[in-house]
């Protein structure tokens, strides 16, 4: 079976599902962020797959570039928030971070 659209889509789906799993089951905010990165990459793989096999062409790659830029901004802001959470709660477990002020 030659490699086609579905092969890319399946890899994207695997990454997406693993990202969802990491987001739901992890007990460390940084690991949850890694799950978010996996999900963004899964979306990017789909964009690229459709740009190559789906007739979307260069438009799909443009969308993927915007996703990458937004992922960079998200990572910076999220890391800043996580460092503040750690400073205030001395923990990065999302279940323990449950008050808006001390």
């Amino acid at each position, binding site marked *: 079976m030659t490699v086609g659209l579905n092969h890319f889509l399946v890899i994207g789906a695997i*990454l997406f599902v693993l990202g969802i799993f990491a987001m739901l089951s992890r007990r460390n905010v940084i690991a949850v*962020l890694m799950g978010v990165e996996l999900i963004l990459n899964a979306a990017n793989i789909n964009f690229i797959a459709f740009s190559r096999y789906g007739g979307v062409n260069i438009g799909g790659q443009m969308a993927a570039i915007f996703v990458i830029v*937004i992922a960079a901004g998200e990572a910076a802001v999220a890391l800043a928030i996580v460092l503040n959470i750690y400073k205030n709660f001395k923990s990065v477990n999302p279940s323990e971070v449950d008050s808006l002020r001390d």
Partner: protein
Amino acid sequence: MFDIIFYIFGAITVVGALTTALAKNIVYAAFALLFTFFGIAGLYVMANADFLAVTQLLVYVGGILILLIFGVMLTTRIGRVDIRATTGSRWVAGVLALGLFAILMAAFFGTAATHVEKGADGKPKTVSSWASHSSLPWSQSKWNKDATGEALNVKYGSPDEAKTHEGSSGTATEIGALFLTDFLLPFEVISVLILVSLLGATMIARTEPTPEEEAIAESVS
């Protein structure tokens, strides 16, 4: 050959993602993410998206992954036992993820993209691919054409023969031209967005100076 390399990159990507999602040690998860990003860059190259592959390496491996590892190092106390996910939430998350995967698979393999039309004698006649549906909205889109109005999938060949297109100068030229023409407004908006988010990140992460530090700063000035 194409298929073998695809499967190698795919395996690197999937194994890295599995380790990222399942490893108990968060540092292992971070380094597995490195392999995932490398594998994805390889997949981009396989799909003729060379500029995207380089961007992926620069931004994800060079930037985001370093940020994540900084986060791990700054928030993990050395010698502390990692808190693992409780079994209950792991089960729920696993069931949800598997269900989602099943739905996605059903959608992928149940749609027209892989539909094989049967001829009158019951033998497979034509394999319809996405690109051959000229009625699909995106095949009519303006981004399917280059500056001279030539349809790009004609220029680059249809997806089935794109595998062998040689002598093309890559996608960087096309993307650069599109950024300054059709995508100028989104480009400017996202530039402002990333500027604001980086400024905001430094503002949030900045530590307030303690009274003693303020006194020292005043005495110096």
